């Protein structure tokens, strides 16, 4: 039973932890810019403020899909943390993103549509890398089960360093960080898919982003296996790297993003896979 305690706690508290990560991220980012930044709990204050707003929506289909994006993302995260099949996890995650894309398409709002299109392209950019990582893990462990990865003695990092670099390269796409934040791009398309959500409905999309943090950092943690210290180190490193990158780079357009991720990140992961399968 003890084996399940930590994952279940993590799953239940995922939105809270994700919110804290987000709050901390805003502080770190601000300090990098020599600002003080908001308090740590600012995301939760925002959360409470949004809950109090008048409920507005474009239509119910759109609002409902936003909520279900949050729920299905949570489910994908749960399967990942409980040691489920990695391909299933990636697929469920893809589908939860697809629900948000669908929400974007369901309205007749230009910015929503632009955002949904760009989000679909982002998925095309990072998904192949995730799949290759999953297959590489399979070639090493002989199974897609993440439970085996969490229990593995030798960290995956040593066996697939290139895949880890590839993951680092695509994580900004996934988390919509600069330079790969075309899907959100507030200055260009006013937030993309998020634009048409408001109040309680926006809450769902907003907290789903926190869940995505947990999801991504768990993926990073996978590379450390059962070595918790290494795992925490990797997560801390990734955290600093993402924020430094976000602060110091300008947005590229979607073509450049796609070319970079499929040309560089995909190739790196692919080379790693070939090495893994030949050894």
């Amino acid at each position, binding site marked *: 039973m003890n084996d399940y305690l930590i994952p279940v706690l993590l799953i239940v508290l995922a939105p809270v932890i994700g919110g804290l990560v987000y709050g901390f991220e805003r502080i770190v980012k601000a300090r990098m810019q020599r600002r003080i930044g908001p308090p740590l709990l600012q995301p939760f204050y925002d959360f409470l403020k949004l809950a109090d707003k008048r409920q507005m*929506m474009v239509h119910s289909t759109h609002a409902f899909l936003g909520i279900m994006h949050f729920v299905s993302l949570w489910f994908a995260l749960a399967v990942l943390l409980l040691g489920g099949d990695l391909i299933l996890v990636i697929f469920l995650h893809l589908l939860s993103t697809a629900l948000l894309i669908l929400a974007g398409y369901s309205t*007749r709002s230009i910015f929503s549509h632009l955002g949904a299109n760009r989000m679909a392209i982002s998925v095309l950019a990072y998904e192949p890398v995730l799949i290759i990582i*999953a297959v590489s893990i399979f070639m090493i462990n002989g199974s897609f089960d993440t439970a085996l990865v969490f229990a593995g003695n030798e960290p995956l990092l040593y066996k697939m360093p290139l895949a880890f670099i590839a993951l680092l390269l695509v994580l900004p796409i996934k988390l919509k960080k600069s330079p790969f934040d075309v899907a959100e791009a507030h200055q260009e398309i006013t937030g993309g898919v998020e634009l048409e959500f408001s109040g309680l409905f926006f809450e769902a999309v907003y907290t789903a982003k926190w869940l995505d943090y947990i999801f991504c950092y768990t993926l990073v943690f996978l590379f450390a296996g059962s070595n918790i210290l290494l795992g925490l180190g990797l997560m801390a490193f990734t955290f600093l790297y993402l924020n430094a990158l976000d602060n110091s780079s300008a947005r590229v357009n979607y073509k450049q993003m796609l070319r970079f991720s499929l040309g560089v990140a995909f190739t790196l992961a692919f080379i790693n896979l070939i090495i893994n399968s030949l050894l």
Partner: protein
Amino acid sequence: MNFYLTGLYFLPLIVGGILLIAPAKISRPLVILSSLLLSVLALLVFFSVSEPVYFSVPHYVSQLVAGADVLMLMYFLWVALQRKSLLVGILSVVQLAGLLYILKNLSGGETLQFMVDRLSTFMFLLINIISGIIAVFTLRYIDEEECSAFRKKFFMALLFWFIGAMNLVVSADNLEYFFLFFELTTLASFLFIGFRKDAVSVQNAITALWMNQLGGIAILAAIFFIMYNGYGEITFTNLLAHTGADGLLLPLALLSIAALIKGAQLPFSKWLLGAMVAPTPVSALLHSSTMVKIAPFIILRLSPAIKDTPVAMVIVGLTGFVFIASAISALSQDNFKRILAHSTIALLALMIMMGAIGTPVTIVAALVLVLFHGISKCMLFLNAGILERVFHLKQSSDMDRLSESGPFTALVMTIGFMSLLLPPFGAFIGKWLSIETLGALATEKKLLGALVLVAVAGGGAVLSLLYFKVMGLLINRTGEKDQLRFENTGPYYSATIYILLGLVLITVAGLPLLLTYYFAPVAAAVHGSPVPVLNEGWNLFIGTMRIPLLPMLIAFFLLPVTILLAMFIRFRHADRAKEYMCGEKINYSFSSFYFSTDRAIPYFSAAGILFFIALIAVALI
């Protein structure tokens, strides 16, 4: 010979004949009745045949078959002359020469020409039920076609003859007979594709003809090599009895090539894509229940012989490549039917791959994909027909606001796409089984396994994106019209769609039962040893493979149910806001994005050709 079986062969032929001359008043009830009867017959045959049934036909029928072969090839020659197609002409001459040579050297002994086993009965069910539904749909569709009354009758007759030819293809044991029926389906699809008689139709019909003729030549060459190597009878049974014998790899490779061509695998995908010019029921027929399904059928029939051979490995590599290549090509498509066609090619690749690997689990996966793909694609194509005829839509980018003008059609199409993509629908189970078993392959053939895994998983991701793109158009609406009123598309259209919808829902609800009592016995017959399917607690075991049912069930509520609910749910207590338009007052028209992947297609074809060369090469070595 089984009485029901006789019905399956002769009923379509006779009905087709009557339809050619009967007035419309008679043909409507006749089509509905005979479709029903064919379905019932197929069911009866499925339940009455558990052991393979062998039967032969009298000697004069053999001569009749030989005569028909020659006659058909003569017709191809005539087509070549009429259309001035050198390619078709040469291929016909080669076929004719090969056939005459084989007929001359055929040992005169009494052989059993037909074999009906569980795989055949499995195919009967698919062929007769789905094609029957399409026939009923066609009654209305062809009425609105702009052509002479006789050609309308001819179309209906051809449809039934096609069903008859398909029933024969899946029961032929003798390869010479198999060749005839194989080429009969080629002939039927040639006539179907060229039905509209405009320049494009004729051109595409010729393409379909010569490509499939190549398949025919491959079969003839296979027969030649079996005889040349002295294995006597040219039957599937004999071929399988000599599994692993010297010199049989080449015939197996050749038969696989015939299958790959029928299955429109690269570089032969052009004929299936070109078939779109025909009336939509033709596409439905070719894609779901007939024609292309010959491909997985041949591979499944041969799977005990080709598995673990280099030929199988090349096929796995080729189909893995085709899967991702056609998924990528599909991204650049806007024509709704072409999107469906690309996804058919991708899924066929998966079926063929699973058949070629040939473990019990992969055979189950292949069968699951064959059946569920058949039902879903049929539903989608018939809807494409409705879109064309009722809503006058052909491009997917024009389909926005369909959820306002035709909510029912939009709903059914959404379900159709979901049934190809999401858990717990059969197509998802098939893909899931594929990925998990490819893992088993990857532990032996590491590099190949890894590459194919990436191809299948990556292709799957690309395809899901594509389906969601189309679903996005289907779900698009303004906030002004919240009232849903289902449109009326007329009795023939709506009845067929309701039946298919029912089939989709029943088969998904009964999937655990179907796996145990329907797919597992068939797979056992194909594989030659029992395939245990166990239902324990929340897990379904197929052999050693475990399908966790609980995540499937949760995923079912999170994904398909969510999307359906999203179309119907209405929040009452939220205020409405207009979409943000930067203060502009313009009515935008919405389209969808696509990627220009066209440039890659020549490379894809070239790679496909290389695979085909490799296929022959490994068989020769």
